[in-house]
């Protein structure tokens, strides 16, 4: 059976594949990946569901514009190498995107099949082809570095935006150096997303491909502190700023400085980046709560509460001030969390973290909410229900309210134009107010998703390539040399 012989009717008759998952009972005590990936047979069958329609709305729905029908067609024909090549040409991190992208609101939401039934499982197929490429890593799969262009680029931040821009620029022959503030690569992919959603080996392998393209990565360089943006502008022909979201928004309620209160960034960094609670030889500590409350309703909140569960919390609770329908988290994450026994305490807002006489967290005082009139975002605004106050027992409280712009770099360059939230202002091409300086990802958007950051990286890389190859824009610029 090959994909080409099927009629549209036959294709539509194939049921959408179910992603095999680790049993919920097992996974809530370990950090193994929850989604197990499709078998070759499952992938081919799912790929056959694609109608190969002419309009290709899925491509429009992808922030990095992957030629989706092309790679799916290759899978349907069991030509996984071709599928992998299509993906790598369009996407620097396909094995990451196949795991963490919200496909249900992007490519899959515009799939023609979804109008009457269920859309093609594009995300699962992307993951399948990308994982196949990682397992069968060879010269035939890898993109090759072209002859040098003679131009150099500095990229600030080795997260999804920076990695994408680096790959796009490197395949154009530009000499790319990524400066990363932390001691390891990946940015939010590594410190933010837990092992059970995105294994570190996937990040390692995807990032290692950059080296094959001649990209240099220097860790422990905090631009704005270790080197200035001004210096990078002098030494490189163009700069891309993708240094991420930054400072956690604090709760602003009494008791938030008690022992046992974490920001999501701190909690996740301890566990994901440092290995606390996971690796036996890890020196970084973490408080393993018995009763953990996470405040928020986004993917980060889901990650925190599911980590807490795996670290041994008998009760792992999520406190969210609206109802489940308004939760920004992916449906899959909410579903997985519920299967793992996470309690969703909805229409509830935190009022005060309660402490004991030794300064340790002992609970969270909460206010019952109800949904009122829609606010500016169109979502119904939560309003307090008078007199409905109750306490939850908790020895760890994690705040997953989001982040605001980190001024570490931007404060050192007054000429870099910022918006009123102190995020960097860019034009439609990702260019900032400084000549030759581009920006993307969360430092521009505030808190957003991996794939939107990657889209920024891709768009900026295209504009940077144009800038670098436009003879008039590079006159008067010193010859490139790496910072020593």
């Amino acid at each position: 059976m090959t994909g080409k012989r099927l009629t549209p009717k036959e294709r539509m008759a194939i049921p959408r594949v179910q992603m095999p998952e680790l049993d919920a009972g097992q996974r809530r005590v370990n950090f193994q990946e929850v989604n197990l990936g499709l078998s070759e047979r499952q992938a081919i069958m799912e790929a056959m569901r694609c109608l190969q329609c002419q309009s290709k709305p899925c491509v429009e729905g992808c922030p990095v514009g992957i030629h989706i029908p092309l790679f799916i067609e290759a899978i349907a024909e069991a030509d996984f190498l071709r599928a992998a090549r299509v993906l790598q040409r369009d996407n620097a991190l396909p094995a990451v995107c196949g795991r963490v992208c919200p496909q249900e609101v992007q490519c899959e939401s515009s799939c023609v099949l979804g109008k009457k039934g269920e859309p093609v499982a594009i995300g699962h197929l992307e993951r399948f082809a990308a994982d196949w490429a990682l397992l069968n890593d060879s010269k035939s799969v890898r993109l090759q570095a072209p002859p040098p262009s003679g131009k150099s680029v500095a990229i600030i931040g080795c997260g999804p935006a920076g990695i994408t821009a680096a790959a796009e620029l490197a395949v154009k022959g530009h000499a790319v150096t990524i400066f990363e503030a932390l001691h390891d690569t990946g940015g939010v992919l590594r410190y933010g997303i837990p092992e059970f959603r995105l294994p570190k080996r996937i990040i390692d392998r995807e990032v290692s491909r950059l080296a094959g393209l001649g990209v240099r990565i220097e860790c422990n360089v905090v631009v704005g502190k270790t080197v200035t943006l001004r210096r990078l502008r002098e030494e490189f022909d163009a700069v891309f700023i993708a240094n991420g979201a930054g400072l956690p928004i604090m709760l602003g309620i009494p008791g938030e400085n008690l022992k046992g209160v974490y920001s999501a960034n701190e909690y996740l960094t301890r566990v994901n980046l440092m290995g606390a609670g996971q690796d036996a030889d890890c020196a970084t500590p973490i408080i393993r709560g018995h009763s953990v409350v996470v405040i928020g309703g986004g993917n980060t909140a889901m990650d925190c509460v599911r980590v807490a569960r795996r670290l041994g919390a008998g009760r792992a609770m999520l406190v969210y001030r609206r109802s489940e329908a308004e939760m920004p988290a992916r449906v899959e994450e909410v579903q997985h969390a519920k299967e793992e026994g996470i309690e969703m305490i909805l229409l509830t807002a935190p009022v005060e973290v309660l402490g004991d006489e030794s300064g340790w967290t002992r609970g969270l005082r909460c206010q019952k909410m109800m949904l009122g009139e829609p606010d500016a975002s169109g979502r119904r605004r939560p309003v307090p229900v008078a007199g409905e106050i109750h306490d939850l027992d908790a020895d760890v409280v994690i705040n997953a309210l989001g982040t605001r712009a980190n001024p570490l770099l931007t404060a050192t360059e007054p000429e870099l134009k910022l918006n009123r939230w102190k995020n960097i202002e860019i034009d439609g091409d990702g260019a900032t107010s400084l000549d030759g300086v581009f920006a993307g990802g969360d430092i521009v958007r505030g808190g957003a998703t991996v794939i939107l950051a990657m889209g920024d990286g891709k768009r900026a890389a295209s504009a940077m390539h144009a800038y670098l190859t436009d003879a008039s824009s590079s006159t008067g610029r010193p010859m490139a040399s790496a910072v020593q």
Partner: protein
Amino acid sequence: MHEVLSNEMLAPNLHRMVIRAPRVAAARKPGQFVIVRSENGAERIPLTIGDADSIEGTITLFVQAVGASTKKIAGTNSGGRLRDVAGPLGMPTHIENWGRVACVGGGVGTAVLYPMAKALAEAGNEVTTIIGGRSESLIILADELSVFSAETRITTEDGSLGRKGFVTAELESLLKDPMRAPQSVFAVGPVPMMKAIAELTRPYGITTIVSLNPIMIDGTGMCGGCRVLVGGETRFACVDGPEFDGHLVDFNNLSDRLTTYREHECRVVQQNKDDREAA
């Protein structure tokens, strides 16, 4: 990887290490720190940059070996390497010429005080240095500080060197002397010491700068673990500090938060000891 060029023990468990870190050496200003990670699996440890030589491309760090990760750093001998050194981080010390300043150091805090005091002296201040410790063996950098201090006073709790008692007593006598009273005080040491000094200077209305050492991870403002209450507001020591107005710092909250992982740290140190003994 960063080569360790020298490692000497100044006092029990206190090491002075010179490390190759050219970029940090070139960018560093007094009061700033680095985050050091000795090897994979080790904690990220914030350490004040004691001194730097931008021509040689080296920085000097003072490392108090108290926990598992600081012991690994301090245990890296000359010729060895530290995996990660990131910085310089934090805001530099605000340096101006106040006229007369007092620089007060307690224990290993004296090492943090050293670059501040040196910069203050270079800016033309008349620096009176007061350093203290439990006993003589824990008094560090007295000779180095004397080079640029108008006067160096020493206190020990057991009276083995200098005046018996605490640094606060020396500072108090200084404050009461109209001819010697400082226009500004810089204090670095254990939290109770800094708190006591802030309380001592408060009635005199003398600007008192303290350098705080909360638990920290990334050092770039990302995690908020190092938050401290200053004037009732939450500030991040890694990006807003580490130096703050001592009269506004909530020292009780700081010392409380510092105990968060005490139990964990004791367990790890004990485990390592057991492992060594078993080996």
